[in-house]
C-alpha cells in the first residue's frame, strides 16, 4: 500500500494535501472498514428521537382495534436484509402485541424466507403462546406476477393464493377462509426494497382497500425518494432505512417491551452506531477531497 508520488509536489501544508489527493484507495477502504467494525465491537448506541414518519407508522397500527386482520408483504431479499429486517421484526412485534391477525406474503422470490425469519425470531419467540397457525397467522409465501398479483388480490385473494406456502388449501385456514379481496384487511404493510414493492401497492392496491384501512411501508433509503410523494395521503406511514427502523423500534419497544432476547428488537438502533461513524467519515472524506482538489490546482497529477 504505497502512495505513488511521481509528480512534483509543493512543500508544506499544501504539499501534504496534494499528496493526500493521491491517497491509495485501499487506505479509504481500511478507514471505512474500521469505522463500521469498531462501533459494532464497542456496541456504540445512541438515543433515537422518533420523527413524524415513524410516529405515523406507529399510530397507523396502534389505532387499529385489537385483533384486526393485517396483511404484511415482505418485498425484499437478503441483499437488503441488513437495512429492512430490523423494521420488519419491529412491525411483526407491534402487530402481535396488539393481537392483530397476521397474513404474510411476498412479491419477491426470497421474501418468503425473510418472513419466515420474522415469524420464527419474533412472532413465535415473543408471542408463540397466543399465536396459532391458521387462526392467528398464515404464511402465504411468494407468488410470481409482480404488480399482477396485487391486481388479482384486489378482486380475488383465493385466485392468487389457492394454498398457503406449505401447500395447504387456503379454504381450510380460518384466518383467510372468508377473505375475498384486499378490502378484507384493516392494514396492508409492505417492507420493500424496490420493484415490485411499495410503489406498486400504492398504485394498484390502495384504491381497493377500505377507506378507513391503512397502508404503510418500510423502504430502503435509495427507494425512499420515490415514495415521498405518496406520504401521507396514500401511504399512512413510511419508515426510511435503518434510521426509520431505529425510530420505530424505539416507539414499539417503549410501549411493548420484551423480557428476553431484546437485542432482536434493537437491530435498527444497534446499526445506527456504525452508521453515525461511517457518515462522519464520508463527510470528512468529501471535505478532505475538496481541500486536496484546491491544493492541487496548478500542479500536475491528482487523485487517482
Amino acid at each position, binding site marked *: 500500500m504505497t502512495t505513488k508520488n511521481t509528480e512534483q509536489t509543493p512543500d508544506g501544508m499544501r504539499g501534504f494535501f496534494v499528496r493526500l489527493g493521491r*491517497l491509495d*484507495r485501499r487506505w*479509504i*477502504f481500511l*478507514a*471505512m*472498514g474500521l469505522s*463500521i467494525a469498531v462501533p459494532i465491537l464497542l456496541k456504540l448506541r*445512541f*438515543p*433515537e*428521537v422518533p*420523527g*413524524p414518519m415513524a410516529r405515523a407508522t406507529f399510530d397507523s397500527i396502534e389505532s387499529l382495534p385489537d385483533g384486526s386482520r393485517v396483511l404484511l408483504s415482505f418485498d425484499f*431479499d*437478503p*441483499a*437488503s*436484509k*441488513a437495512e429492512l429486517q430490523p423494521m420488519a421484526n419491529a412491525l411483526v412485534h407491534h402487530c402481535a402485541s396488539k393481537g392483530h391477525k397476521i397474513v404474510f406474503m411476498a412479491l419477491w422470490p*426470497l421474501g*418468503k*424466507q425473510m418472513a419466515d425469519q420474522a415469524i420464527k425470531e419474533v412472532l413465535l419467540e415473543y408471542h408463540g403462546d397466543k399465536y396459532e397457525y391458521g387462526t392467528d397467522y398464515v404464511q402465504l409465501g411468494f407468488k*410470481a*406476477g409482480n404488480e*399482477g*398479483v396485487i*391486481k*388479482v388480490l384486489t*378482486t*380475488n385473494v383465493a*385466485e*392468487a393464493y389457492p394454498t398457503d406456502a*406449505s*401447500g395447504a388449501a387456503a379454504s381450510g385456514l380460518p384466518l383467510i377462509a372468508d377473505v375475498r379481496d384486499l378490502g378484507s384487511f384493516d392494514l396492508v404493510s409492505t417492507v420493500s426494497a424496490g420493484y415490485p414493492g411499495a410503489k406498486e401497492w400504492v398504485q394498484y392496491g390502495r384504491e381497493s382497500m377500505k377507506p378507513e384501512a391503512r397502508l404503510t411501508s418500510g423502504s430502503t*433509503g435509495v427507494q*425512499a*425518494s*420515490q415514495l*415521498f*410523494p405518496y406520504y401521507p395521503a396514500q401511504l399512512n406511514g413510511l419508515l426510511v*432505512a435503518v*434510521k426509520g427502523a431505529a425510530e420505530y423500534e424505539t416507539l414499539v419497544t417503549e410501549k411493548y417491551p420484551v423480557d428476553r432476547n431484546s437485542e432482536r428488537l434493537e437491530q435498527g438502533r444497534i446499526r*445506527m452506531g456504525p*452508521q*453515525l461513524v*461511517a*457518515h*462522519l*467519515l*464520508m*463527510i470528512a*472524506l*468529501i471535505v*478532505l*477531497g*475538496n481541500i486536496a*482538489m484546491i491544493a492541487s490546482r496548478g500542479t500536475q497529477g491528482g*487523485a*487517482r
Partner: protein
Amino acid sequence: MLRRTIPMLILASAGLLLIVAKFSPFTVSWQETVLGWFNILAAVAFVLGAGNLLAVNLEQISSRRPGWAYAAITLFAFAVTLVVGMFKVGAVPNGMHPDIHLAGAHDVPQAPFGWIYDYMLVPLTSTMFAMLAFYVASAAFRAFRAKNIEAILLLGTAFIILLSQTAAGMFLTGWIPEDSVFSFLRLDVMKRGITEHVQTAGMRAITIGIALGVAATSLRLIFGIDKSYLSKT
C-alpha cells in the same frame, strides 16, 4: 403477415381488453385470467433465460476467453441449485404424506436447498450490498467536488442528510427549540424541508412525466403506430 399482423392484433386486443376490464365490473375477472397467462409466459421466459445462460457461458468456456473460470463456476452453481431445488433433494418429509418425496419441504434450514440459501445466497448477496459502502466512500473522496454552484448545492444537501440520518443531527442542533424562530437551523427540520418540499416536488414531476410517457407509448403500441417491437424481416 404472420410476423407482424398477428403480434399487433394480440397486443391491441390484450391492451384494449385490460383497459376495459379496469372500468367494467363485468370484466374485472379478466385480470385474473391475464395473471394466469403472465405466469405461463414467465415460466417460458425462465426456460429461455436458462438456455441463454447456458449458451453464453458454455461459449465463454469453450473459447477460453478471459474469466472463463467464472463462467464454469456460474454453470456449476446453476446446475446444483436447479437439481437440488427441482428434485427436492433431501427434502424434509411432509407429515401428512411422508411417503411422497415431492410433498416434502425443501426450502427449510434442515434441507440442502435451505443450506444453499443460508450459507451461500445470504452471505453472498449481503457481501455484495455491503461492498457498496467502500466504493461510495472512495467515490466521495475522489469525485464529490465543489466545482460549480450545482455541485455545492449537492454537497450541502448531502451534508445535511448524512448528519440528520444519525444521532449527530440531534447532538449538533437538537438544543434549538422546535418552536423558536431559529428552528429552521435544526438539521432534522432542514432534512424534512428537503425531503418534503424539494425532493417530493421533483419526484412528483418525474413521476407524472413517466406516467404520461407510459400512457402515450402504450397507446402508440395498442393502436399500431409504434411497431418498433416487431421483427423487421
